[in-house]
């Protein structure tokens, strides 16, 4: 479930179709994923999931799999 919601957030932030976001999506293959949008992504994720992402994790969320892992950890 979170999987789908994360992709929707990413789609909105990066302004790309949700279908184009694969499990291997990362800052390497999403052209719009720059440092400014990365901060927007963190804020959007926090808002969507009602969580606070710790500062030390912010820099780690550089691909879909890591975002999924961290969000799931926080939601546990």
């Amino acid at each position, binding site marked *: 479930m979170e999987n789908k919601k994360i992709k929707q957030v990413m789609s909105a932030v990066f302004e790309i179709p949700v279908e184009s976001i694969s499990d291997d999506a*990362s800052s*390497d293959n999403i052209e719009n994923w720059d440092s400014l949008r990365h901060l927007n992504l963190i804020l959007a994720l926090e808002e969507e999931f009602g969580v606070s992402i710790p500062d030390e994790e912010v820099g*780690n969320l*550089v*691909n879909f*799999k*890591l975002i999924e*892992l*961290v969000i799931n*950890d926080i939601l546990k």
Partner: protein
Amino acid sequence: MKKYAEINVGDKETLIHTIIKSDIEKFVQLTGDDNRLHVDEKFASTTQFKKPVVHGMLGASFISTIIGTKLPGDGALWFSQSLEFLLPVRIGDVLTVRAEVLKKNDKEQIIELKTEIHNQNRQIVTKGIAKVKVIETEVAPIEVEKKEDTPKTALVIGGTGGIGKATCIQLAKDGFNVIIHYNKNKTLAEEIKAEVEKHKQKAIIVSADILNDADIKEMISKGIRAFDKIDVLANCAATGIPNIKFQDLVWTDFLQQMEVNIKSTFTIIQAVVPEMIKNGYGKIINIGSLSAEKPNADWSHYITAKSALIGLTKSLAFELAPKGIRINMVTPSLVNTELTADIPVKIKLLTAAQTPLRRLALAADVAGVISFLASEKSDFLAGENIRINGGQAMI
């Protein structure tokens, strides 16, 4: 050419040359010495010699020929010569140039030669003493190895581990026979043996406790009985790496890592090296860890042992390279194997994300480099550490 050791006091060499008019013309052309005594018959007739006299140094130059081509020959460094010109040499004279070893200086590899030039009447026309340093070409014994058609044999320690298994298979693909060491997993060892044989190479499996000296000796002995030789040793054995905070570490945690990484490596190398020295050739590959250069927390016991392995590899490489044994190591970053199965997924994902090539190392990546170090392609590497980390650390 003669080697210094092959030259004995009393050794002699001879060459014969008949002086013709064109010799003088060429000598004049080369040196510019057109002294009329040598080239002008009319002038010569007015002197006590009555006929032209051949340049003394023309005759003496044949001493150079005998030293440079016969005694000692190629590589001779002729650094001193005394000369007395006792009788004139004429066109048509048949010169016999003789050199005889009078003395040897072993420390400097210098020989002293009596040099004499006789004419056809057995009269000495020129004599002197030559000093020559015997220069030998810089070909170390290890470079003149015989290239064999028979496949090389590799002993893979920890052959049933992740990197060990990939190494056995890669070596077989690259034409090595393989001695597959295993500790307990005989079934897997036999599967790997079958895999090696699919690549048309021979394999045996050998069980040994690598912390037991007798087991190690027996393992080496079995390998040599099966293949007559061991050319390559790949030390792929590893033990688990528990995460332990420094304050919780006990000395036995260090010892466990030191025993597998250092004691067993040391004992196995010591057991296999006499065989490699006998063959004048050997390759040994140890496996390091990126953590020894780019440390992480909670692994000080493991990092200490791997750092010690760097020292062991370099010092042995230095000591054994002159005997033809090349010891090198590979240093992978985090490899996705059973050994690292307990490392949290997040760490693996983060490591991959932070690696320029965006993935973890595979056992096959490491095996490929090990096979390169086992091959003759890497014969000029000794004490080298090849990092396999996808660009994660560029040192």
